[in-house]
């Protein structure tokens, strides 16, 4: 179960992105598994992919790879957990999407996060302090 971060999504949908080659290299290896995405990551991706053509690519990527929503039933509880996580890491100035991925990784232990953000290796941890399993080497 692969939980997508913003960096690979943007890289796939923008051939000029500096990480496009990395994402295209990693995608075939990961494509056998089920992909999941959360709303904060989609929000970030839509900001970075501002042109309608780029967003159309994003829509097609979501549809073609049957990317599922990582939504949870108790969303308010998730938000509160994310706020707690943000407070814990406040000196590192994390984003809402970072916190959401970390908390979701703690709730669904089978998730492996696909990201090119090194803070998932160096800094971010699950709420219980354990490492966040990653889908690729960064």
């Amino acid at each position: 179960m692969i939980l997508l971060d913003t960096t690979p999504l943007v890289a796939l949908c923008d051939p000029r992105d500096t990480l496009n080659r990395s994402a295209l290299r990693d995608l075939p290896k990961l494509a056998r598994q089920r992909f999941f995405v959360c709303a904060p990551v989609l929000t970030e991706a839509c900001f970075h992919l501002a042109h309608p053509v780029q967003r159309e690519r994003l829509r097609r990527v979501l549809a073609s790879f049957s990317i599922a929503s990582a939504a949870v039933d108790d969303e308010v509880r998730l938000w509160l957990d994310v706020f707690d996580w943000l407070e814990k890491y406040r000196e590192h100035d994390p984003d809402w999407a970072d916190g959401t991925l970390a908390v979701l990784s703690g709730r669904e232990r089978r998730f492996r996060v696909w990201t090119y953000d090194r803070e998932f290796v160096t800094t971010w941890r699950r709420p219980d302090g354990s490492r966040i399993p990653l889908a690729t080497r960064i």
Partner: protein
Amino acid sequence: MAALLNVRLDPEDARRVAALKRAGVKLAPIVRDAIRAEHERRLGGKLAGRKARAIMEAIYAETPDPPGLRQRSYDVRDARSARRAIRRKIRATRA
């Protein structure tokens, strides 16, 4: 017409097969499942990989960048730069 698969068995496996048959176990579904599992294990990843590459090539071919599309001026991994870009966009929208 369905293909038929003949498999040579040594005496030990032949005894096992006979015991399974006596127990009422049908062997054909077991063999089919084993073939499918091995096919998926050995070739499934390659097929999924090829399909993924083909999907992305099709997406790029069908949605080319329009002429003059400006390249992003910041690295998406750089949260500070991304935040500055968001603030610029908000200011531009309000102005």
